[in-house]
């Protein structure tokens, strides 16, 4: 079932999240981890690019990394789903491949 993409850098530091979003397919999932979770916040310079993805691509964020950075769940962009580490494993297992965007 498509590709699980992971992004671990802030989208305000480099273009990696945008490049990742530009290379996704319908049925893919993008999981934001580590500093990548800053990309999941609503009302930023990035959030429009995220909302443009619509429902073709599922967007996830690792809750532990949100919590570590003090990002309240209420600040997450619409449609972004928070997962725990078990959810991360499930996403890895249910997709055909994992592509880590470094």
């Amino acid at each position, binding site marked *: 079932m498509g590709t699980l993409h992971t992004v671990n850098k802030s989208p305000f530091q480099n273009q990696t999240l945008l490049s990742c979003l530009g*290379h996704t397919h319908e049925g893919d999932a993008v999981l934001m981890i580590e500093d990548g979770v800053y990309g999941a916040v609503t009302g930023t310079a990035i959030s429009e690019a995220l909302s443009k993805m619509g429902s073709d691509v599922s967007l996830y964020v690792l809750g532990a990394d949100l919590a570590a950075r003090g990002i309240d769940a209420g600040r997450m962009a619409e449609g972004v789903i928070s997962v725990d580490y078990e959810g991360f494993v499930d996403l890895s297992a249910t997709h055909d491949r994992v*592509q880590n965007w470094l």
Partner: protein
Amino acid sequence: MSETIKKFLYVNRKAPYGTIYAQESLEVVLIGAAFDQDVSLAFLDDGVFQLTKGQDTKEIGLKNFSATYRALGDYEVTKLYVEKESLEERGLTLDDLQNIEYEDEDDDYAEKSSIRLISRAEMAEVMADQDVVLSF
């Protein structure tokens, strides 16, 4: 003993000398070439800078590994996908890249270019067509 051949894609998204990623990727590709898998390389974003011609590292104290890309054909690594949009965004064209060729043993060893210029959408297709994706 027959083993399953898997499709491996090495994704290169970083310029060559500012970090060690590009050189490490090339090392892994050469090591991996010993395992007779179906190997492709992708160059996008700053990764396209890895393939430019005329690199000269004499004065920065780093090894110039750019010539190694031209040796990949001898290891049967003959598919180097380069993203057109990434070149254009950086003011580059194919003419700015090295000639990287391989000998096609199925075509009387004719020399052919290993570089395949593709669009961003086509790159997404290449990525989706792999068994394993390794990012650098």
